[in-house]
């Protein structure tokens, strides 16, 4: 019994060992072989080849956060709606009313956010 479950982990262990060894070898190789020249340009962060512009310490508008949370609400709603749509014929009327209550609660959330001015970008 024990061996059966333990054996399942053998590939994982092998993969961990192999990837760990290869990675550390690569790093050691790079440290030994690669030429070391510290210049101003080599200290610049890599941004897809384009020289970076401006400071990275930029403030991000808090409204993005509100929108993200708001998006999440409806995203989760969709996640629940898909399996519901597949199975509700088999369950019957109660599934319909349960979903109506769930959507009603989310709708109240929408009303709340709307009245609180989350949808306004000013």
């Amino acid at each position, binding site marked *: 019994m024990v061996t059966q479950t333990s054996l399942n982990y053998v590939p994982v262990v092998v993969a961990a060992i192999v990837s760990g060894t290869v990675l550390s070898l690569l790093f050691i190789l790079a440290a030994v072989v690669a030429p070391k020249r510290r210049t101003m340009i080599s200290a610049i962060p890599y941004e897809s080849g384009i020289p970076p512009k401006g400071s990275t310490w930029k403030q991000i508008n808090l409204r993005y956060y509100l929108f993200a949370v708001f998006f999440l609400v409806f995203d989760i709603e969709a996640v629940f709606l898909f399996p519901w749509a597949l199975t509700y014929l088999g369950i019957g009327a109660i599934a319909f009313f349960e979903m109506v209550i769930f959507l009603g609660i989310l709708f*109240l959330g929408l*009303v*709340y956010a709307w*009245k*609180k001015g989350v949808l306004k970008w000013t």
Partner: protein
Amino acid sequence: MNFLLLLPEISVAILAGCIIIIDLFVPERFKRSFPYVSITGLSLIVVFYIFSGLPSSPSFLQNVIVVDHFTSFFRILFLLLGIGVLFASGEFVEKHIDKKGEYYALILIAVLATMLMAGARELLTAFLAIELLSFSLYVLVSITRTDQRSNESGMKYIILGVLSSALFLFGISYVYGLLGTTIFDDIAQATINAPVNLGLLFGITLIIVGFGFKVAAVPFHMWAPDVYEGAPLPTTALLAALAKAAVFALFIRVFVTAFGPSISSWQTIILIIAGLTMTLGNLVALTQSNIKRLMAYSSIGQSGYMLMGIAAFSHLTISGLIFHISGYALSTIAAFFTIIVYHNQTGHEEITDYAGLAKRSPFLAISLMASLFSLAGLPFFVGFATKFYFFTAVAAEGFLWLVSLAILNSVISLYYYLQIVRQMYIEPGTETAPLMIGPTPRIVLGFLAIAITVLGIYPRFLVAGAELAARTFF
């Protein structure tokens, strides 16, 4: 399925939803009525619930929730505590909190969560109920947005709260992984003959740690003083009375029904935590100068006493524990009510600020004294009756050393409670103008003080209720 059994919970949820929605559409001057709307709603729910004859059902909703005497007892207790907190909030919220609708709705949601905690019969439902309570408390703690202390305590509370929830879930995953069920009765069935192995012990220990965080047991208590101090006062009252009682209700149900058969593996852990918690809480309380921090450490000490009941594990100790929890919650609400009324009048919350209170408002002084003496366990107040009953029950189970420690700690606690009383009655205050207290706080506080005294002299009803609730398990 009989949804009528969940009617109290459903009504509280609808009430909370209504308040949030009404808050959006009415002008500011109508929001003054929110506490009274909520109080009326909760009172109607309590009255209807009691008059409906406390229906109960052994099996319900696929065993996820159970409605029995234990649930009924705590439902009524939590609804009454919620009403107490709402009464205490009115004037404070008017002065310090700008989001009134959310505040009252969140308090109602917290009450809803505590009722679900009392009825949970399955680990994941229990977890969801705890999270519902915690989420409302995270917001309630940091609801005074312009106050830095409130923000800081909200931050501390959410980080440690999330950590404890994660540990709790991790523990649940171990229990589920090893036993294949999360329903309490099935867990008990699965462990009744089998010895507890290391994995299950690990899971149970993690669940104890999760509960330990929520009830602020040593060594998981570090958040409590900061959060109690930074939170707005009515929220502190909610934390100290309602949240603590609810977590203990769930603690009792989980450890008596689910892990009851495996008691020999976790009893020592809880005994040690209980001893540490009561000693450290009461000793550190001696050095406090802020009354909220003092109440925080005193409530940590109280958690220590309550943990004894779970470890001692018998019909008498559990009914004693339920009795003690109700007495503690009542006294705490009364104490915080006076602290809030005093804060509304003066804005002070240091212990030395209470100097001369007996001259400025004899009524406030005597109610605070009654509730503090009740917390300390002096005769004629409910705290004495509950401690006497509870400690006797624990001693009868053979834990004399722990009970001796608890009694020693009660004596220590008397010292710091008396410090406040000394300030109020003996120290001359710098201000002497009498305090004007409105009729509502006067009536509610008077009622609470009388309830503490009457239940201390004649505790039979409460004892009978606690006995009945504990008989669910034994």
